[in-house]
């Protein structure tokens, strides 16, 4: 019995490694994801383009503008000459924010009168616009306090001291890179599994397996183990990359991480086997993987937080193994998540794995008839 399964597992791993298409599945998505997500896929807002309409042209307006010019965030600042210029600049996306300093701004300040700055933001990118609004308001607040100090007046509203636990500088990579362990094993683990049976069908070797003394359960095990191995290898590579290259602190237990990863992989492999049993060709299996993987990633909390979704959609995400795994992996990286909390998020994955694997086994047997 073990001989047969060992033979199957070796064959499967060799088939993946020796087939150029198999190698492509193993190599291309990980590199692509690592590059894109570590470098490009960020909701951070940097290099902000700004336009300033200074109708005051006074001492304080010049001082305020200087604060923006000196800020590393606002890298692209243009100056407008009149109100009429605001609309075209915003329309053509030449500036995401326009700061309008009214006439008499310096005079009001000197006289100790309240004054108002106008901010026009491009809502077409509402997320970025809100973050930019935050940046601007922080600079203006600071400016306000500094003037008060300079003029010897009581300061305006006090500043809130905000601290960010787990990720003090709000590094986006500290979230995306650990999450990649989940998304990459999803893509690789699933495509390896989904392609495996479909490949044998397409090449005609599947019948060869079925006429051998192998039991259906052995064949399924022989398909599951290699994907598990591949998933664990990829997961480990990304774990090391996250810690060594991206310097994301790992505070939790490695053992818990691997235990969760195995459960998570089993859930995914079940889906992969299901798709594979349905597909006649590798191309169909590939499309099937895509149809599952795209929603799974979008609804996992990776693309956007789960709590932003409507409640019914949040409940729907509970059947998504990646949603649970992302909580665990981020918890173990930066939050030193205790075992009990890990367990709270792990048992749903175990349940999903049980369901997907039995469904795959059921379909596999059915398709043999």
């Amino acid at each position, binding site marked *: 019995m073990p001989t047969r399964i060992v033979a199957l597992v070796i064959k499967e791993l060799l088939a993946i490694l020796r087939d150029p*298409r198999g190698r*492509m599945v193993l190599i291309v998505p990980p590199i692509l994801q690592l590059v*894109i997500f570590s470098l490009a*896929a*960020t*909701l951070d*807002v940097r*290099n902000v383009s700004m336009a300033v309409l200074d109708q005051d042209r006074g001492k304080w307006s010049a001082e305020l503008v200087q604060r923006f010019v000196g800020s590393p965030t606002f890298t692209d600042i243009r100056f407008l000459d009149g109100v009429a210029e605001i609309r*075209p600049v915003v*329309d053509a*996306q030449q500036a995401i924010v326009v700061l309008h300093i009214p006439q008499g701004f310096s005079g009001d*300040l000197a006289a100790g009168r*309240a*004054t*108002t*700055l*106008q901010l*026009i*933001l*491009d*809502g*077409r*990118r*509402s*997320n*970025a616009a809100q*973050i930019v609004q*935050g940046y601007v*308001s922080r600079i*203006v607040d600071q400016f*306000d306090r500094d003037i008060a100090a300079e003029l010897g*007046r*009581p*300061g*305006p*509203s006090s500043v809130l*001291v*905000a*601290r*960010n636990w*787990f*990720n003090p500088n709000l590094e986006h990579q500290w979230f995306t890179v650990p999450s990649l362990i989940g998304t990459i094993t999803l893509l690789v683990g699933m495509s390896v599994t989904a392609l495996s049976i479909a490949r044998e069908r397409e090449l005609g070797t599947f019948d060869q397996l079925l006429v051998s003394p192998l039991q259906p359960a052995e064949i399924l095990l022989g398909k599951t183990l290699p994907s598990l191995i591949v998933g664990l290898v990829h997961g480990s590579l990304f774990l090391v990359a996250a810690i060594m290259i991206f310097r994301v602190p790992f505070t939790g237990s490695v053992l818990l991480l691997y235990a969760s990863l195995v459960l998570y992989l089993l859930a995914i492999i079940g889906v992969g086997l299901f798709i594979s049993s349905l597909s006649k060709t*590798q*191309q*169909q299996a*590939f*499309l099937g993987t895509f149809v599952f993987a*795209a929603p799974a990633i979008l*609804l996992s909390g990776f*693309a*956007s*937080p789960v*709590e*932003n979704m409507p409640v019914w959609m949040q409940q729907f995400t509970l059947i998504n193994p990646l949603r649970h795994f992302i*909580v665990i992996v*981020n918890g173990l990286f*930066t939050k030193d*998540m205790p075992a009990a*909390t890990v367990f*709270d998020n792990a048992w749903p994955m175990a349940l999903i794995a049980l369901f997907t694997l039995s469904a795959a086994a059921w379909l596999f047997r059915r398709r043999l008839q």
Partner: protein
Amino acid sequence: MNRQRPRRLKALIVKETLQVFRDPSSILIAFVLPLILLFLFGYGVSLDANEIDIGLALEDTSPEAHNLAVAFTNSRFFDVRVARDRRAFVDDLVAGDIRGIVVVPADFSARLKYQGDAAPIQVIADGTQPNTANFVQNYVQGVWSNWRQQRRLERGETAAPAIALESRYWFNEELESRNFLVPGSVAIVMTLIGTLLTALVIAREWERGTMEAIMATPVGTLELLAGKIVPYFALGMMAMAVCTIIAIGLFGVPFRGSVWALSAVSAAFLCPALGLGYLISAATRNQFVASQMALFAGFLPAMLLSGFIFEISSMPAAIQAITHVIPARYFVSSLHTLFLAGDIWPLLLPNVAVMLAIGALFLGLAVRNTRKRLD
């Protein structure tokens, strides 16, 4: 001979249309996937942190502290749970059940008495979700400032003269991320049809040997190319129309541009999308490899490097440079403008020009590569 051209072209188009409706994977890509994606971006993906769960540690029991607690509870941005001690929330924060803790310390009312630079309350945000953490900070600051302002007014204090910041968000006053995600997803859907589906159906003709049979008939090379481009162009435009109707009708996204401008921009985008699909299929002649390449060269860039979700201006310079050759970038920007702002030609015209230029390059290569030859 030339009188036969329209007939042959029509025959090829009819054949192509029948096939799309009969092949399961074509139906999947042309009809099912677009709807799934549209609904995901309409309902599933949202960057708007509404009702963020936070913990309010009310360590001071003074009336002022209670008053502040009410201000937080009434805020539409927060879903607040209250406790007497900040330590009660630490586990919740680790588990991700709350995204931040607002601490009203025991000496709150005392510190409120004299003006300092620092506010007497503290906010702790969960940094694991940086975007949400940003919102937590901004919103808490907002609630705090309003509460202070309110208090002064109630007590008849003259407010310290301050610079007020009056922010106005043009085009999307409600600040719903759906309003830019749903229009952007039209670009994704049209990439699926223009590039993935086209690459797949042509590769299938090579795989099944029907391309060979067609090439041995008097059909011309340009007819062969047009016979593929025209039906998927039409399908792409139809998909665009359906998505637009769903976006407006179901998701309530505003549409401020004109229909004909939208059609023109979409048509311009389909040129490079179809050209890329055609080139991929000609290079691979295999459905499996073609679908992989179409996803890597068409779908992923449209999703990640087009400014659809992620900020192009925040990317490293090298990747920003790459985004300039990705047609979806120009299409996504045009779509945002057409839906939310209107027909702003100074922005649309350059976008259309670049898309047409890339399209002309791809289609030109496609024409050059189309010969009635197998090698």
